[in-house]
């Protein structure tokens, strides 16, 4: 997707975390360019959204085009965790541990209705975690049940834009503000 085709680039530019510091902005630009173009996702899928995520990685939609090159089987090597599928209370500690094991900088994409609010299991369920943002900090929400590969791709591109606005300084601040138990 071309840079001009996103709707609100001007406001995003204004929201850059490093502000107008010329020196820091230049370093950030270089670092962010590297980070956003080599986003390696973690192989983590708990239900049907996972199938859609595999399809996004498969040749037809092929998100390697955008630098989400390979699925990593180990959280140590992954940059982004796409939470694809229902997280139940029993799964929550596992997800939290996976997130903790990922090395900085790390990003979270909540894919599908289940991970955003609990989705179809919201009502009358004794097992569901109503939104993964109760456990780990989420950067991008991709709604849908499950989202089409195009939607996930768009979400990942939005994540790249998010990374562009970040600075090496604010990463620490952000993590400190997300002190989840």
């Amino acid at each position, binding site marked *: 997707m071309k840079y001009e085709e996103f709707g609100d680039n001007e406001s995003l530019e204004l929201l850059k975390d490093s502000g107008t510091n010329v020196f820091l902005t230049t370093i950030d630009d270089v670092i962010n360019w590297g980070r956003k173009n080599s986003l390696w996702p973690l192989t983590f899928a708990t239900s049907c959204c996972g199938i859609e995520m595999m399809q996004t990685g498969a040749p037809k939609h092929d998100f390697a085009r955008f630098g989400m090159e390979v699925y990593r089987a180990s959280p140590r090597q992954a940059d982004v965790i796409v939470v694809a599928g229902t997280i139940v209370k*029993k799964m929550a500690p596992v997800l939290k541990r996976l997130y903790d094991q990922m090395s900085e900088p790390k990003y979270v994409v909540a894919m599908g209705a289940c991970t955003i609010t609990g989705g179809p299991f919201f009502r009358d369920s*004794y097992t569901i975690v109503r939104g993964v943002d109760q456990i780990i900090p989420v950067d991008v929400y991709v709604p849908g049940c499950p989202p089409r590969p195009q939607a996930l791709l768009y979400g990942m591109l939005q994540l790249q834009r998010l990374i562009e606005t970040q600075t090496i300084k604010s990463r620490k601040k952000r993590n400190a503000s997300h002190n989840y138990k």
Partner: protein
Amino acid sequence: MDNIKLGEFIKSLGSDLDIKEGKQFTEVTVPPSELHSLARQLREREETLFDFLVSITGVDYGPDLGLIYHLRSTKYGHTVVIKSRTSDREHPQLDSVSDIWEAADLHEREAFDLLGIKFANHPDLRRLFLNSSWGFPLRKDYIDDDIITW
């Protein structure tokens, strides 16, 4: 054997059985004390030979807790439904049939996990899905503050 004949035959196996023709299968209601001996006979008698336990379903009827067994014979192809219930909610206990059908092991653990029905002589009665701090979520009087209902 067809359903009617099956019902008549099973009636002769126990003293306190209630036989009813359901829409699809013959339904036998048996008191918990006779459950194990009836199951043993159904499994071993040459006339019935129910060698396949299709499923065990736990039910919360209200005050009563009950179990429904679907049995099938792979030799004759006939099926029967066995029902048993207990009115004791505090310590509901029925005899395990896992010594007769190996498949009952996990089915009974599931019933124990979700409804809290205990099984006497079960070899390994641990919780199956949930951890020990959980209640028995499929009971009608289960209370959990996390559940959202409207």
